[in-house]
């Protein structure tokens, strides 16, 4: 039997610098101020996520970037529960729920099936974008084995971890990516353990890139629209497995004002607590994004209630971790950030005055 060729999609990248630069009207400026932004939204309104949900913003951007020829899997997690109640989902593309531990195996099965069906002529059309969006509980904890296996076998699919740094679905329990000092129902701060969570978070994306060197691996946050959408497209265009670690704030778990979701996505990068980078499997090199502004970690921590119990020595430890991150990224650590490694330089976080972003009110 003659085998048919598997035709793959190629998604063009967005011009990141073109964001506010002049684009003549005749190339569609009238319709798309964000350059080449697709009109379609495969993730639609009516989902029951909380107001200001970070993962919902990330889902929308990822699916907007992926387009209609896409198949999505979603392991158990808050984005499965909130999106797929009452037998209906907000997706206009095929979507399937999997068990929390089997996001990787299910998705590799889908990818293998599409490939073989196309080869055998049983499916006509281009190879679809195959995506799985797993929470941090699934991708970094319970289901890390199956995702690692899928990456290792190099199935042509994009594995996304939307990281809201807790098990939000079951009511905010600690997960391996919960940061040091984060308060959850499993790590409550008290007299014995005043900092809440004692362990530093798992470096999931580095595990994936170091452990599966043929994969395209990147990290991003909801603070940077075009970066997230471009990394999605790069991951989908990559022939083989790709892994994207995406920082997505959870308003209920982190206790912040709902309008600040996107601002947090920027501040976590500017404070050095979530390095944004891209791993090029061909060169085996990391390319780090150095934000235009470097902030003290308090600017980020003090926006969230989950850190409100932190003592000066805990904040100083966070600053040390952030400065190590800057060093890893090859960025200069300004003197003022070095000085903040000293606990004397801090107050109890609930008394901390910090540079708030422009406040336009509390939402929802």
């Amino acid at each position, binding site marked *: 039997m003659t085998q048919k060729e598997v035709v793959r999609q190629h998604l063009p990248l967005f011009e990141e610098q073109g964001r506010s630069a002049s684009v003549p009207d005749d190339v569609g400026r009238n319709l798309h101020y964000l350059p080449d932004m697709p009109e379609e939204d495969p993730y639609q*309104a*009516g989902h029951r996520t909380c107001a200001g949900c*970070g993962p919902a*913003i990330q889902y929308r951007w990822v699916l907007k970037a992926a387009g209609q020829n896409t198949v999505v899997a979603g392991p158990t997690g808050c984005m499965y529960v909130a999106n797929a109640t*009452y*037998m*209906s989902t907000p997706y206009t593309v095929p979507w399937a729920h999997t068990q929390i531990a089997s996001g990787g195996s299910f998705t590799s099965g889908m990818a293998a099936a599409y490939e073989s069906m196309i080869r055998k002529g049983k499916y006509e059309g281009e190879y679809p974008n195959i995506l799985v969006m797993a929470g941090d509980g699934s991708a970094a904890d319970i289901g890390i084995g199956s995702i690692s296996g899928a990456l290792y076998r190099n199935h042509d699919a994009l594995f996304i971890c939307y990281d809201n740094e807790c098990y939000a679905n079951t009511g905010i329990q600690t997960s391996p990516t919960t940061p040091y000092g984060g308060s959850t129902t499993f790590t409550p701060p008290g007299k014995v353990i005043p900092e809440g969570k004692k362990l530093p978070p798992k470096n999931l994306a580095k595990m994936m890139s170091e452990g599966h060197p043929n994969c395209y691996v990147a990290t991003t946050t909801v603070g940077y*629209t075009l970066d997230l959408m471009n990394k999605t497209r790069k991951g989908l265009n990559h022939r083989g497995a790709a892994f994207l670690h995406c920082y997505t704030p959870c308003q209920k778990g982190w206790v912040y004002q709902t309008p600040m979701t996107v601002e947090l996505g920027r501040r976590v990068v500017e404070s050095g607590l979530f390095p944004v980078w891209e791993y090029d499997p061909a060169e085996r090199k990391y390319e780090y994004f150095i934000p235009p502004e470097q902030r003290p970690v308090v600017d980020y921590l003090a926006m969230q209630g989950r850190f409100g119990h932190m003592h000066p020595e805990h904040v100083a430890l966070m600053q040390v971790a952030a400065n190590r991150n800057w060093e890893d990224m090859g960025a200069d650590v300004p003197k003022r950030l070095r000085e903040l490694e000293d606990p004397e330089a801090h107050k109890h976080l609930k008394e901390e005055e910090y540079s708030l972003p*422009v406040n*336009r009110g509390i939402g929802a």
Partner: protein
Amino acid sequence: MSVKGTKIPPKLRLPLAGVTPAPTEEAGQVLFPTGNFRFFRPVYKDKTPPCNHACPTGEKIQKYLDFVKHERFLDGYLTIMEDNPMPSVTGRVCYHPCEGACNRKDHDEPIGIRNVERFLGDFGLELADEPIKETLPATNGKHIAVVGSGPGGLASAYHLRRLGYRVTILEALSKPGGMLRGGIPHWHLPENVLNAEVTKIEDLGGIEIKCNTRVGTDVSWQDLKDYDAAFLALGQDVGRKLPVEGNDLRGVTGGLEFVREAGFNKPVKVGKKVIVVGGGNTASDTARSALRLGAEEVTIVSLEGPDELLIVPEDLEQAKAEGVEFKTNSACARILGEDGVVTGAVLCEAHLSKDEEGKVTPRMNPDTEYEVTCDNVMIAIGQVQHLDWIPDHLIEGGLLKTDEYGRLEDNIFAGGDIVRGPAMVVDALGDGKRAASNIDKVLKTADLAPDAPVEVMPYERLNTSYFPHAPRIEAPLTPPEERIRDQEIEVTLAYTQEQAIAEADRCMSCGVCNGCDNCYIVCPDVSVMRDTRENGAYSIRTKYCKGCLVCVQECPTGCLEKVPELDFEDESDVTRMETAFSVYDGSHAEQSIPIAKLQEDAIAEYDAARRRRTGATSGNGKRR
């Protein structure tokens, strides 16, 4: 569950699979309107950008910068022309209060608004046909007199013509332009540009400029009253005299008179050493013109200290670069002469002092007197106007006394320098615009009313994360050694098209939606709908908006605001909160009925198909 794109073989189809409706891009998930989560609703409310607010003519600066950014130069030009008939003039000579107010000055440097305006003005002058001409209404038979063809007079004539009036401008001098021709040197405003702008207004039709017609001698106060209305914009074109000994010697001239002679291309003679007395912009213009007309050494003598000079900073810098000397905190005590001709002056130290009432008076120190030699002394210490033909009760302190709407009496309005004292060109333009609209109201017997208060957008309320720092593009200058050779060489040069676009692109669009799509893309609930990319053309899909306000927070310009949901009463788009969590009433119950109906229909259909296939009387064993 959506089954779009997958193929489920018939034998595997279950009654419930795929029966719930898939969401559509237009309607979302019809069964789950999440709008009842909402306490606050985002609302688009455009504010006034500080630049627009600072401009006396109220130019919509943010709007035309946005047009320039998108290379829509004609739209940009037409936007300016709504408020200001001569952008090529103001683009060169305006002291740009807009740039002083620009919020970008707190971010990095203010935007070069004046240079972009000049770019648009010159773009407009190069058009073969003036596009405004087509938009003019026919004249309505009423005839208005405008006294003075300076910026105030021309602006009022232009705006009155656009409102349908016939206008006659009475100009005392031989050429129209007023202070633009007689007070602003050619190296600042080239004659051909001024002529083109005046011609542009004259060519609109319905505007007649009568030169060599001096009001007071050729036309009387009573003649003015015969018109349907009149606007007085005479300006102040008589230089004030220096009250010292020797002020009538040959070689002592008024700075303004000197600049006017040069502006009207009359032959003027300047000696080698010139002293200019005064500390304002006229002094600077006089001194710099003298340099261009042959003087070798020009000194400005001013009562003001080095930091108190009333010369705009850029002009001061340019004057210093051209070699103008400054003797600040000094005064001219006497002018010396031989045979009736100036030979020198006696200067002394002096300063301005404020008395208790805030009145500023010069204090001279006679002990410090010293002599200098010079060939000319030019006086630029202020201007007045002859007003003996106007009834006395309308004059106060040498200026015309108007009410808050610029009305002198009945149908006679006044504006510009004759009301304000020496002020900016753009103030006169603004007065002309205001007079035109007020005359229109008076002639239509409508009441005059003050402008509605506006909300000006402060820098603190912008979301500056979206504005990367970018330096201002300075307009190129002709090098000093070259530009002082001739008074026809323009000092400040124009932006290129690329520079104009890049500079307009720095605009932060304070408080006004510029369609940046940020709200559209950050919405987690796909509830900011975008139809066309025009200002304010987004709408909020209230059926789904959960009121998280991420869009409000992320709006770079601050035109989005939150409004409490209870302020809205239109039932078509309100889903009240109290029903959201109640299972047995309200929206949950309403939602559950159609879901149950869908299931029942699907089961009935399945049963019917099964009956057809098997002949059975009942589908699933149950009696229905």
